[in-house]
Structures are given as C-alpha cells and as structure tokens.
C-alpha cells in the first residue's frame, strides 16, 4: 500500500513538473509585456525607452525557465513584476477567500446533489425524477457566467436583496454580511458542479436498488427511507469521492470566471488581473497552485478510493506480489 502511495506521489511530481514547463512555454509565447504598467503619460519617449529597457526581459525561454524552476523548487515563486513583492504571500493572502468559496460550493453541491440523486433514482421515471434530471441538465448546459448575470439581475437589480459583488461591505464586516455576499457566487458555482453528481448518484441508486440486498431489506420490511438513506447511500458515497476529486478541476476553473463575475477577491480574479498585466511570475504561481489543488484532488481521491474499495487494494497487493 505504501509503495502504491509513493508511486502515485512520484507521478504527481512528474505531472507538476511538466505542467510548469508547458505553462511557462505558453506564457513565454504570449505577446505584450509588463511595460505598460510602468509607463506614465508624463514620461518622455526617452524615459519610456529607458524604463522598457530596464525591465530587461531579454533572456531566452529555457534560461528563464530553469532559473524560475530552481527557485520554485526551493519554494520561492519569485517577485511579482508589477507589485515588486514576493508572489507567494500575495497568493496565500487571497487563498482563504477562494477556499472559502470553493469549499462552500463543494459542501452545498454535495448536500443538495446526494439527496436529489437518491430521490430521483428511487422515483425513477416519475415526474419528480424528470424534474430533478431536467434541473441537472439545466445546470450543466447553462454558461456559469450567464447564470451569474441572471442571478445579479434578479437578486440585486430587481429585488435589491443581495449585494452584487465583493466579499463584504466596507464597515459592516460581520459573518452574516460575508454570507450575504457569498450566496450568489456559491449557488452559481454549486449549480454547475451539482449536475454531474446528481446524475451519478441517480444512476448508482438505480443500480443499487436492483441489488439483492435491497430486495432482502424490503422483504424484511425496512422502510423505503431507511433503505435509501442507510443502505443505498452508503454504497453510493464511495464513488462520490472520486467524483469530488475529479470535480476539483471544474471548481478551480470555475472559481476563475465566477470570481471575475462577482468581483470576489480570491486568487482567480487576481490571476486574471495578472494576465492583463503580463505578470508571468504571478500567472505561473497561480497555475502551479491550481494545478497542485487539481492533481492533489485526484491523488487523494485515488488513495481514499483504494482504501475504501477492498477490491482495488487487493488488486494492488496482488500486483505488488503479496
């Protein structure tokens, strides 16, 4: 088992290394540079030229990459070109708000999709199932920014219930205030990630309901609710771990757009700004960070799943010659 974990961890490291190389290459190819940040209107042409020259982005791409990698391995992601301060503290400062958003959306989508999926599966092919499935289809088919826009129009512009953007109102920083700001982005984010979970739980429930143990439980006179939430749920939860792990991708990428739509002060909107400024140290650090979250999500899901499902573990043990 340990060997398996180590092997997986090694793969994670290689994937991260390659991600960094690809990203670096892409950024290096991108046109434009940081210079527009430094040029003010009152500068003369000569001063502009001096400023541009001083930025000195004249090294070749492999050189820059190796220099960057050397430092990154030591945990130093460099100094932001635009802010002139180390990148990592800036990202970690904004990370909690992104984790708050991502974590809550994940929790909300799990809390909603599991019961919905169970019910849909149990009431297979009834109007309830159709409604829930329709809802899931809707969630996976609507562009998240569009749904966000519609929410803003409804709850802010029309009903004046919720604030349109940001994380808290200035001056009234209470948890309730933050909660109010969170509702719309969390719902938007949860909606898109709920769809796949609902559908998965539903399919799994239908599968489980035809298993013998359910028949046995029914025969014993166990109530449907108990069967559903005690027996079926237990067997459905396991695969959900994998789904959550794989969902990290959509969460990470989703936070990127949703943070921009709702002006959420997290790392996604920060990275978006950095792209506008061509601040490659920030972009790289963000890519590494979100790539890490993603890869780790899959990694942890793999490990958990192999713990959870004895068959996989047995398979591994056999492969390892035990």
């Amino acid at each position: 088992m340990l060997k398996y974990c180590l092997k997986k961890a090694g793969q994670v490291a290689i994937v991260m290394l390659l991600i960094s190389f690809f990203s670096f290459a892409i950024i290096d190819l991108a046109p434009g540079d940081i210079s527009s940040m430094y040029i003010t209107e009152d500068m003369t042409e000569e001063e502009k030229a001096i400023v541009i020259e001083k930025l000195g982005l004249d090294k070749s791409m492999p050189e820059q990459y190796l220099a960057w990698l050397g430092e990154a391995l030591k945990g130093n992601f460099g100094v932001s070109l635009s802010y002139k301060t180390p990148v990592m503290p800036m990202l970690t400062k904004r990370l909690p708000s992104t984790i708050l958003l991502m974590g809550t959306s994940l929790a909300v989508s799990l809390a909603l999709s599991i019961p919905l999926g169970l019910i849909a599966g149990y009431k297979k092919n009834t109007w309830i199932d159709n409604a829930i499935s329709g809802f899931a289809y809707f969630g996976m088919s609507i562009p998240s920014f569009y749904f966000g826009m519609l929410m803003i129009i409804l709850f802010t512009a029309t009903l004046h219930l919720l604030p349109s953007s940001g994380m808290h109102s200035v001056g009234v920083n209470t948890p309730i205030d933050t909660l109010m700001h969170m509702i719309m982005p969390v719902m938007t984010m949860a909606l898109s990630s709920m769809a796949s979970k609902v559908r998965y739980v539903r399919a799994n429930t239908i599968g489980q309901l035809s298993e013998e143990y359910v028949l046995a439980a029914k025969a014993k006179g166990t109530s449907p609710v108990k069967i559903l939430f005690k027996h079926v749920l237990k067997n459905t939860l396991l695969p959900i771990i994998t789904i959550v792990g794989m969902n990290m991708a959509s969460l990470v990428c989703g936070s990127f757009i949703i943070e921009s739509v709702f002006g959420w002060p997290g790392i996604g909107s920060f990275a978006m700004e950095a792209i506008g400024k061509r601040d490659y140290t920030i972009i790289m650090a963000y890519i590494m960070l979100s790539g890490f979250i993603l890869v780790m999500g899959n990694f942890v899901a793999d490990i958990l799943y192999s713990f959870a499902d004895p068959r996989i573990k047995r398979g591994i043990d056999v492969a390892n010659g035990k």
Partner: protein
Amino acid sequence: MQKRIMALFLAAAMALSVTACNSSTEQKNETSTEQKTETTTPAETTPAETTPEVRDTFTVAISYMPDTLAPHTGGSDDYTSMTRPLYDKLFIENNEGGIDYYLADSLEISEDGLTYKIHIRDDANWSDGTPITTKDIQFCVDYSIHKYGYNRYCRVNGVEGTINIIDDKTVEFILPQPYNYEIVTLSGMTVYPNHVFNGDPEALINSTEYYNKPGFVTSGAYTVTEINEDSFVCTARDDYYRGTPSVKKVVMKVIGSGSTRAIAFENGEIDYMRITTIDELEKYEAQSDKYNIFSMSEARLNYLQVNPFGPANLNDEQREALFYAINGDEVIAGAYGSEKLATNPNSLLTPDISLYNPETPDYVYDLEKAKELAKSSGLEGMTLTYIYNKDRANMEAVAVVLQQQLAQIGVTLNIEGMDSSSFFPRFFAASSYGMNGQEKTWDLGTNGWDSMRGSTLNQAYSYLNQSSNAWGLTDVCGELAAKVNTTTDKAEAQKLADEVIELALAQHRIYPLTYTNYVMVSQKYVTGLDCSPIVPEFIDYLGISVNG
C-alpha cells in the same frame, strides 16, 4: 465491511475538514474585522439611508485592488484616480489654461523662460505632521537620477539643467534653454516623503511593504485607515493644509466593470460612475430626481494613426482616399451617440489647450472623391489590419463604425482588439519600443492622448517631434514643434503651432477622431464632482459633498 465504514469515516472527515476550513476562515475574518473597526470612527455603522444628515462616506468603484498605494508607482488612470485623495500635486494646469495651486502657492517663470521658481505653501504638511519642504523635492530629483540616470524635472532635448534650493520652501529649476513643456513636467510631479526613507531612493523602490499597511504618510486630504481584500478606506485628515473635507471617508471598492458597476450603482452600493453611451446618459437624465449628471471635458484626443511601417505601406494618395472616406460626424453618432459625450475634432490639440485654434482646417468627408481616389490609387480591394485598445471606452464602437465606412470604398478592415499590455508594445513599437518587430504587424490603429490641457503642445509635442520617423511625418514637423516649445513669445508660439499642425495634418498620417467628454452620474445627494474638472477624477476632494 469494516473497510467501507472506514471509507465513510474518511469521506466524512473530508467533508468536515472542508467545513472546518470554512469556519476557520470566517473566524479569521471576524477577528480581523474587529481589529479594523477599532481604528475607524464609530459613526460608520449608521445606515446612510435612514439618517441622511450624518452621511459622510463617498464610495468609489475601482476596477482592481492595488497591492501598493505608493506615490511613485502607478501609471494607469485608474491608479491615479485611486490615489488622488492621498497625494497632492504641486499645481496643475486647468482647462482654462490657468494654474490651480495645491502644495505650491506660486510658480514664477523668468522672462527668458529659463528659471521656474516654485514656492511650497508654508502650511503644507505630511499626514504625520512633518512639513513638506524642498527636501522632498530634492528626494524626487534623486529618485529620478537613480531611476533614469538624470534629473527628469529639468532636462531639455538631452541637456540637463540644475536644481537650486533656495530655502526650505523655495526651489528653482534652471533650464539650459527655454522649454514651455517644463510646466507639464512639473505639474506631473508627485512629491515623495524624504523623511520616511531618509532620502534613499532605493528604500522608496522597496517600499511596497510600507505602502501596504494603513497609516502611511500622505500629502493629500486623506490617509488610508483600512485595507481589505477588495477595498480600502481613506479617512479625512484634520490637519490638512487646505482645510478639512466635508466627506469624512472615501471608500474605494473593487466592482467589476460594465453592467456589474451599473447594478451596484443603482443598488446604492457606489456613489457615482462614469457613463460612456448615450443610452445610459438618457436613462439617468430621465431620472433627475434620483441622480445627478456631471460632465467635463476629458481633455483627450482620440485619433486614428496610419502606420508608416505597416504591411500595406499606404502611399500619399491611398491615405488621402482613406481620410476622405471617414465621416467624423457619423463616428460620433455611431460610437458615442451624442455631442454630449464626444465632439468631432479639427486639430491635434484639444480646446483645453491655449494654443488650440478653432480655425484649423478639418479633414473633409467626401465619399465620391474617396471612391474615385481609392480606385485610381489601388486602395480599393485592399485588406488592412486595424488595432485598438480594448481597455479604452468606446474604441470598439469606433472600430465598428470605421469598418463599415471604409467598406464603402472597398477596403476591408481586419480588426484586432487587445488589452493595454498587448496594445502598447504594438502601437508604440516604432516610437518607444525600439522597433521590436511589431511595427510591421498593423496598418491602422486608434489611440488617445489625455491630459491635453494647459499652454503647450502637450502630448502632441512628443508625437510631432518623434524619434526614428515613428509616425511617418516629415522632419520639419519636429523642428517646428521644438520651436513652439522654446519660444517665449506667445504670439510667435501660436503662429508656429498653427503652422506645424496644419503641416502634420496635410500629410494624412493622423486623423483626429474625437474630443471626449467625461460624463459621470452620481446619487442625488452627491454634489461637486465637477468642482475641479480634471480627469482622472477627482483632484479636489474638498469640493465634493455627500449631503445634497
């Protein structure tokens, strides 16, 4: 089965850790909030709507959260606008050709135009009580030498002048030759606090940490008392040398652009916003019981440039055909919708510049002639690459209109919109970026000059007096423009200015597209946004009131 229970347990642990993570961050927010509220005044918690008499906060939407609020960085108009409450200029040229004084109270220019003598107000002080003196000016000069290798505040055509400190409050900039542009340079000066950095320019460069925390020293009417993830709060100083502002608190809050901002505004989350289309203007004008509209000249010229290095390399006749085909009035009507938002220019100078001459002949729109010329010159059937800066208001709409107009003479425009970071290295490839190769990638492009006010050619000067033939004008233009800047006689300067602008326009390289107005809509209780009509807004916070 045991394994399954364990898995369940693990899954639950995962879910728990997520929630735990949430609550811990929330707690963190809570505690940091408590710390923050201690430093602010207690009046803030009173809701503004119910008790209008205690309204004292002015909320401004910003497009991004700056990581430092230092006076020497920046560049974008947004940043200038954000730091306006914090840093005062010495003086600024206003739209009437006069001078508004801030930190300085007099500027004397000698007869020969060589000596610029500035006196700083006796009561001008930093927010920590230290007087603002010529030491701080010297610090700016030292910083310039450290950064550029020379004193940018008194340098004319590559020759450096000297700075002469007379006493604590008086300083002279002595130029090697007369140079009218000097006044633009000096009015752009932001003073840096010498006493904080002990006069060390390197310490100023590494000052991000210092300018990251509330309470750093400022020269303007406000100090920063709170910095959050997506906002910062400026609180009025009570020892500000020009008096105490009636707006006690300015909140700068990150709000997205476009409709997000409009929604936040209509929801009362922010107190004003800029509007750039006639539809918005008409909408808010119709609700004059709820909103105020302010309009001021932006002192900005937007223009179309024909790139002399472009792949199509248009000849004289082709450029003439191109300019005949442009209908300036339709550009205004199509892209702006009203004369209230922009007017059709006739010159390279804006009416906010005293050298501006309303008689300068404008390009004429003549479609028939354009078609004829396009046919005879071979312009017809050509495809040109057109670039514009997406970060600038209305530029996309201008591109849409021009594309349709030029289609009428058989010219196809391939339009590429990009953000400033991509646009500048491309548009200024030949002038500022030392021919980086991108000068060969576009034929037409739109750009704008802002802060075109005062008594000089302003930005038109560096355009006319170009390096390495960047814009395709003849050398005579540069020589004439330099003469305008060194002439001390006003009538002579006017004559030369008229001459150089007519000469430049005759070459069909630059087409002046619009003089823009900066139009803002505010909540009804906000007044005085146009008390000192300088863009980027607001140079004078003392004139703004939030109590109707």
